């Protein structure tokens, strides 16, 4: 099998060939490293490629298999792209920020540890909006990532690097983080699959914080089954994260396999009235209507549901998130790690100069916004009221999930937009996450599955499930994917144009 073919396989297919010793993990790693070498100058999905550590990890998998050992996990030997917001002892961790340029953390994140323990080959660290603040990856201090479907357009954000790596066949698996849509929106924009697990479902230990009550790590892949396999590797309780859920990981792999059989009869799918219509591009709406027909054809019963407070989700989110950001990013004080400005007569001046030089405009905006929202005199009207809206949004979900098994909506209001179009208009950028924000505020689960093309660009179907309801979400996602692929003669991602340097 040629190297280019290895980069086209799903993670599940690649794993089975590695475990059957038809292909070595080193060959798989090398094929993807070569692919990165060939296309990443154009895509710029990676901030760092760890060639030696990747090959060494793959060699360990091959050696164990040669000794007759069982694979340490169903994904042992499969390459992966890791968002540069997880600490790694053998690679820099920059979070897309100048303030952490070349920072090499002294410890591994729990997600990093679990990937290593599962024998997954970490190829490198992927580009992102600075500290995960943004919806286009244009707010990275290290340059924009380009969308493989149209390199003049953004791949979404903040996890644009991870999503673009999948779509450019630089890796079959990736890890993202989703605070308001940073896994699902890039998945929709790149024709890939992205999952935001239930809040607390994947450890945040070693995940550099954006907004702690909203941040959630999750799997990214080109198929629903691959995402499920990765979900089971990274999910589960971690005593080092006090908000980690101390319950078994939902059986998402079995659910994905069941869903692929293509029968959703008996399931009720709620169509959220407030997530669609005005503000959503016609092409996105058309793709969504087709998705609903497909779900019906699979036997699901469609029920229109109303979540009246979702329309306030964005406003609440852009008060709660900046408030948490302004507190979390106070740690970048130029004293213990990261950048330190040369100028300043006192520690305080050095700190202010460092933060001015080290943070980009979006991070500064959000820090000041949070500082404002938490100021005495404004606290009740802004932060306090936003927290009440958060309660009402959770209640909307609870009411909806008392009627239906899952909720669906378009993942994004638009198709991927041209690089530069929204970067100086923060509010226009924020609207990207209109449909994804409510799940973060309520802590429930959500995923984006490729649903089709609009104007030749990918769009996604969002499936949302109650807390710890990932199994039914994966079942619906896998059934939808199988039906879409069967109707369209193959997966959407097979239609991505070849990236040329």
């Amino acid at each position, binding site marked *: 099998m040629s190297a280019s073919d290895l980069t086209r396989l799903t993670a599940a297919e690649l794993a089975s060939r590695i475990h059957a010793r038809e292909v070595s993990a080193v060959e798989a790693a090398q094929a993807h490293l070569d692919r990165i070498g060939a296309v990443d100058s154009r895509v710029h999905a990676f901030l760092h490629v760890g060639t030696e550590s990747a090959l060494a990890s793959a060699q360990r998998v091959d050696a164990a298999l040669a000794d007759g050992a069982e694979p340490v996990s169903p994904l042992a030997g499969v390459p992966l792209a890791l968002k540069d917001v997880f600490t790694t002892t053998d690679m820099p961790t920059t979070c897309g920020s100048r303030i952490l340029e070349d920072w090499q953390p002294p410890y591994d994140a729990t997600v990093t540890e679990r990937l290593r323990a599962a024998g997954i080959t970490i190829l490198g660290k992927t580009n992102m909006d600075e500290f995960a603040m943004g919806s286009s990856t244009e707010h990275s201090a290290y340059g924009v990532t380009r969308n493989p479907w149209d390199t003049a357009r953004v791949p979404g954000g903040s996890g644009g690097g991870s999503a673009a790596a999948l779509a450019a066949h630089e890796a079959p698996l990736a890890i993202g983080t989703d605070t308001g849509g940073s896994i699902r929106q890039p998945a929709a924009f790149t024709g890939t699959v992205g999952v935001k697990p239930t809040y607390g479902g994947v450890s945040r230990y070693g995940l550099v914080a954006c907004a702690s009550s909203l941040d959630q790590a999750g799997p990214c892949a080109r198929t629903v089954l691959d995402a499920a396999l990765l979900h089971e590797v990274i999910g589960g309780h971690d005593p080092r994260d006090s908000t980690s859920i101390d319950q078994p990981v939902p059986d998402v792999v079995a659910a994905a396999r069941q869903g692929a059989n293509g029968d959703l009869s008996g399931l009720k799918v709620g169509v959220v009235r407030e997530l669609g219509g005005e503000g959503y591009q016609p092409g996105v709406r058309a793709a969504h209507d087709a998705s609903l027909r497909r779900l019906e054809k699979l036997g699901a019963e469609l029920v229109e549901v109303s979540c009246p407070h979702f329309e306030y989700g964005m406003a609440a989110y852009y008060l709660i998130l900046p408030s948490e950001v302004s507190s979390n990013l106070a740690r970048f004080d130029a004293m213990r790690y990261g950048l330190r400005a040369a100028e300043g007569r006192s520690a305080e001046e050095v700190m202010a100069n460092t933060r001015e030089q080290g943070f980009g405009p979006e991070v500064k905006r959000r820090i000041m916004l949070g500082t404002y929202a938490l100021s005495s005199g404004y606290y009740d009207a802004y932060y306090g009221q936003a927290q009440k809206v958060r309660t009402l949004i*959770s209640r909307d979900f609870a009411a909806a999930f008392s009627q239906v098994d899952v909720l669906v909506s378009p993942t994004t209001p638009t198709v991927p937009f041209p690089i530069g179009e929204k970067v100086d208009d923060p509010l226009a950028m924020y609207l990207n996450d209109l449909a994804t924000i409510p799940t973060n505020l309520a802590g429930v689960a959500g995923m984006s599955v490729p649903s089709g093309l609009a104007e030749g660009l990918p769009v996604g179907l969002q499936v949302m499930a109650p807390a710890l309801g990932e199994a039914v979400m994966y079942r619906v996602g896998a059934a939808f994917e199988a039906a879409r692929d069967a109707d369209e003669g193959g997966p959407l991602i097979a239609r991505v144009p070849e990236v040329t340097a």
Partner: protein
Amino acid sequence: MTAHSAERTDSGGVITRDEVAHLARLARLAVTEDELDTFAGQLDVIIGSVARVGEVAADDIPPTSHAVPLENVFRPDERRPGLDQAQALAGAPAAEDGRFRVPRILGEEQ
């Protein structure tokens, strides 16, 4: 949005340049003069938009700080390995004698 922000500017705007300077000082950001102008306009638009949360009647609604309600989470009080001195200092911008070296903390007058 443009018409909306113009109206607000006519009445002085919620976020003035001085307000941004104040917020930047609180947040330890040595912003430039140009940034004060840019951020004042942008923050004014953003705050005008997020103020919508005030339209929701929520007097009797409890606030949610966290999606998953949790009581205190305890762990066994056992010794675990931490970072050693070299690891802790590995990323320091300046270190001396096994400690973080920091700029002057007290002002001249103190």
